């Protein structure tokens, strides 16, 4: 009796007459048949082409391809040369935007890096030095204490002292400057757009697909047009960073505002708030804790962008990593990479703790007279003044003396060499085995699929899991990729992404289930995952390239490391959210631990796992483009090439192709998860 209630097979049986057997059988027939046909065509397509002498079977004929790239390039040229709105030239608008960003950036750079300088080039005279390293360290220590505690103050202080001692100060300050400009712009813009979407229905409706697309378009795709509009330099980098970091802020703002308890909104109306008062005095302050989570994300994403941004003109740590990677300078790359991580940790902890400040602390801080309330800001001002004066007499106060800097570069180089020499055979064996037995066969399978069948197959899958609408959408998107002549690189992308996602899930899901098991494992795994997510994506590349050199294998490992987190998170979340009564019912009916897991928990969390898979795929795709740097041969590489050639048309077309793959995967998985939930009776 109990068995019947808890057995997920039985739960699936919601339709009146269809038996479990029927469903399974038809499912097997569909998926099995699809696989067999695809495999056969993938293996023999080349032979068929030889046999029939029909080359179009394996290659989409160039004559059928419309010139998307040329059209887009032409459009961009027109935009920049001739377009105007209300009599203002488009070019002038971009100049205005650039000026608006550049002015505050110059100020921050002046304060942190260059000092107050008058004149240009050789005649430049420095009137005031930049903030001394002592002053900056004291400021972040004060900020840490103000936000939380001496412990946090010590951590942030240590991070910044690290930057000084290990010779990364100036680059780090350049990076910090761009973060200081990008974060307010992205957070403020995201907040306003989020509010707009919350208040006005059509803004919400219009923005939703754009946000979806933004989440899936790789950064590289819009680097090219930005480069085209704003030229190579920090402004382009800032614009790209802001665009990259804003969408999550918009989403978080909308969620936060919707999450404000209905009672508080009613209170606002009951005391007679105008719509504006309602928003700024009631809703936004009440939603502030959640909104601050968004700000934290914006900070992390801006740091994530520093290396990519350096490709279009940002200086600082990102630039150091990039040049090191290009020169294969192991030590330098790791050194600068660690500095980014250190900076990320300091800013992450600070912003997170600020978001979760307890009221007792806020209350304590708002007490007392002017001096007491502002003791930290006053002491910082004092320190700045003192270090300025002191710096004139003792230069080491102004800037950390180069003679006392420690370079770890040589150490890293030697360490890596040691590992490479000592473990070369082992590493190489691992790499060869995985490549030979797993990655290459999968690659052969995907790249062998003839485009026509590929189009039919994804359409069939769309039709099956999501009905004719999804089928049509998938057909159009895949068709566009084919029309653009990108089928083969697209399949390379699917292969690399698929392999990485498979491995990430194989590692991540058991890890998540383990984490959900008990509080200790949860803490350990949680900390591990948090760390993985805090690291900017590029950081994964450095050691991997050092150990495995360039190629698909390195790319795969970097992607797995980057995309692991959602697999773990969703699995853990799914297990924790299973209705305890269902598990108890299983225990009562005498399931062993193994049976509980296999027969009850796993089937119950499948929808959750699919959502995790979805996120993993999105992260994998965004990382994929970055791995182009280590010599993959997929769409990512095409985007990268377009970027180096500043070829707008190619950049956008290829970028959209990646986005389309992401959308296809996203919609198909979301539809499957939805179907599954309905079958499990979790959703109407």
């Amino acid at each position, binding site marked *: 009796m109990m068995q019947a209630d808890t057995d997920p097979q039985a739960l699936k049986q919601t339709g009146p007459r269809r038996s479990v057997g029927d469903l399974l059988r038809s499912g097997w027939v569909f998926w099995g048949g699809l696989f067999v046909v695809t495999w056969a065509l993938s293996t023999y397509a080349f032979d068929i082409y030889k046999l029939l002498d029909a080359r179009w079977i394996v290659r989409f004929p160039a004559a059928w391809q419309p010139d998307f790239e040329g059209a887009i390039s032409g459009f961009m040229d027109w935009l920049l040369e001739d377009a105007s709105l209300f009599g203002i030239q488009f070019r002038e608008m971009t100049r205005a935007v650039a000026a608006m960003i550049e002015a505050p950036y110059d100020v921050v750079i002046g304060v942190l890096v260059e000092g107050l300088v008058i004149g240009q080039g050789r005649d430049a005279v420095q009137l005031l030095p930049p903030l001394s390293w002592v002053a900056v360290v004291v400021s972040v220590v004060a900020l840490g204490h103000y936000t939380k505690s001496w412990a946090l103050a010590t951590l942030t202080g240590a991070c910044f002292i690290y930057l000084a001692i290990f010779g990364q100060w100036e680059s780090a300050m350049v990076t910090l400057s761009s973060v200081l400009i990008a974060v307010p712009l992205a957070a403020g813009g995201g907040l306003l757009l989020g509010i707009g979407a919350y208040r006005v229905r059509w803004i919400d409706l219009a923005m939703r697909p754009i946000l979806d697309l933004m989440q899936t378009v790789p950064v590289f795709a819009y680097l090219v047009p930005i480069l085209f509009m704003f030229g190579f330099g920090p402004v382009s980098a800032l614009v790209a960073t802001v665009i990259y970091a804003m969408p999550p802020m918009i989403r978080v703002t909308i969620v936060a505002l919707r999450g404000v308890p209905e009672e508080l909104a009613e209170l606002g109306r009951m005391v*007679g*708030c105008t719509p504006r008062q309602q928003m700024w005095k009631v809703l936004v302050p009440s939603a502030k804790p959640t909104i601050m989570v968004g700000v934290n994300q914006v900070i992390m994403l801006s740091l994530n962008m520093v290396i990519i941004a350096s490709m279009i003109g940002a200086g600082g740590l990102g630039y150091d990593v990039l040049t090191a990677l290009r020169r294969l300078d192991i030590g330098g790359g790791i050194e600068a990479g660690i500095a980014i991580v250190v900076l990320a940790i300091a800013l992450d902890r600070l912003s997170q703790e600020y978001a979760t400040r307890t009221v007792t602390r806020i209350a304590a801080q708002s007490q007392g007279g002017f001096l007491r309330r502002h003791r930290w800001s006053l002491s910082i001002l004092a320190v700045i003044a003192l270090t300025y004066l002191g710096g004139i007499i003792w230069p080491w106060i102004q800037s950390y003396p180069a003679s006392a800097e420690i370079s770890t570069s040589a150490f890293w180089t030697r360490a890596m060499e040691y590992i490479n020499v000592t473990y070369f055979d082992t590493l190489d064996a691992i790499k060869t085995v995985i490549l030979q037995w797993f990655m290459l066969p999968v690659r052969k399978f995907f790249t062998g699929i003839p485009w026509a069948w590929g189009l039919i197959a994804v359409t069939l899958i769309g039709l099956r899991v999501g009905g004719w609408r999804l089928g049509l959408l998938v057909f159009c998107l895949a068709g566009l990729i084919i029309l653009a002549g990108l089928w083969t690189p697209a399949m390379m992308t699917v292969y690399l992404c698929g392999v990485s996602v498979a491995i990430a899930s194989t590692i991540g899901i058991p890890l998540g289930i383990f984490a959900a098991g008990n509080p200790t494992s949860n803490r350990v795994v949680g900390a591990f995952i948090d760390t993985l997510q805090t690291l900017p994506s590029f950081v994964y590349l450095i050691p991997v390239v050092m150990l495995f050199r360039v190629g698909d294998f390195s790319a795969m490992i970097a992607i797995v490391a980057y995309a692991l987190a959602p697999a773990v998170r969703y699995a853990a979340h799914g297990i924790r959210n299973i209705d305890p009564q269902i598990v108890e019912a299983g225990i009562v009916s005498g399931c062993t631990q193994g049976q509980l897991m296999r027969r009850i928990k796993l089937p119950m969390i499948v929808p959750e796992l699919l959502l995790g898979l979805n996120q993993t795929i999105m992260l994998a795709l965004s990382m994929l483009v970055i791995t182009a740097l280590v010599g993959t041969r997929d769409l990512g590489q095409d985007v990268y090439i377009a970027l180096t050639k500043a070829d707008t048309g190619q950049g956008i077309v290829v970028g959209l192709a990646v986005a389309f793959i992401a959308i296809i995967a996203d919609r198909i998985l979301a539809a499957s998860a939805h179907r599954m939930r309905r079958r499990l009776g979790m959703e109407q």
Partner: protein
Amino acid sequence: MTQSSILLECRDLWKIYGHAPETFLKAHGGAPRAEDLRAAQMIGAVQAANVQIARGEIFVIMGLSGSGKSTLVRCLSRLIQPTAGELIFDGEEILGKTDKQLIEIRRKRMGMVFQHFALLPHLTVLQNAAFPLEVQGMDRATREARAREVIELVGLKGRENYYPAQLSGGQQQRVGIARSLAVEPDLWFLDEPFSALDPLIRREMQDEFLRLQGMLKKTIVFITHDFDEAIRLADRIAVMHDGRIVQIATPEELVLNPADDYVAEFTRYIPRAKVLTLGAIMRPGAAAEDAAGELSVRDRIETVADRIERADGPFNLRDDAGALIGHVRRQEVIDVLVGRSIGA
């Protein structure tokens, strides 16, 4: 109850949730039955409500969870737009008012206390209490002075600079009450203000509430699902069931003449002595023998039972006008106390 003594009145008020409720309501001639609603998958949160609330009275709305109490009060305060009906506040129809006019009415004339306090987490006690005044654009010194007054009134003096998270539930609700009183509203809505509190604190807050009302004499609409609370506080009680008001009466009438089984079920386990007044059990005319004393017909049995039970003779009863109209003996009081069915 004369016409002018009525502060708030609603006539045939409906609130229906679902797809195109107005059309649905019209299609059923403005009075769909429960079956119609069910068939169309509509929720009739408030159905055909008629309420008149007199100045200075405590009007309690009572009913089980989901019976539509909150929805009714939110219609009365125009926080949500009713699907149909009339709503008259101080002689004026207010359903047709513009948002601007409504803001004005709410700012000056209505106050509301919420079940979960609805305190703004980022403001101190003082700032929370002053919030309605701040919204009106009052200058800081004036509004804080006024806020201090109401904070003192609810007994929170000394905690002005605390944040809501630093207060207990009872204290938080005191802030909620202080805030709603800051604008000196004519009409005071309280939506299950004490439900989220422990029984002991709840009792204390009820006393506090009665004390405040004794001083302020507001017109009050009070929601509760607790009949004990209702009879302690109410002048009149409206009982709601599945969106309909099934009876509006004084606590005593509810107990003596429940309109239907639902109301009877509510009142069944309530000790009669708590609800009934001496008037309900008196015998007409003055007592034949020497009276032990005089009482009012309006006294609740519970409050005077001890005196009557210990005295030797009967008590004569006078009505509000002071006329001697009846008497009670010890036996009748004991009958009520032990729960024997009363002869009335």
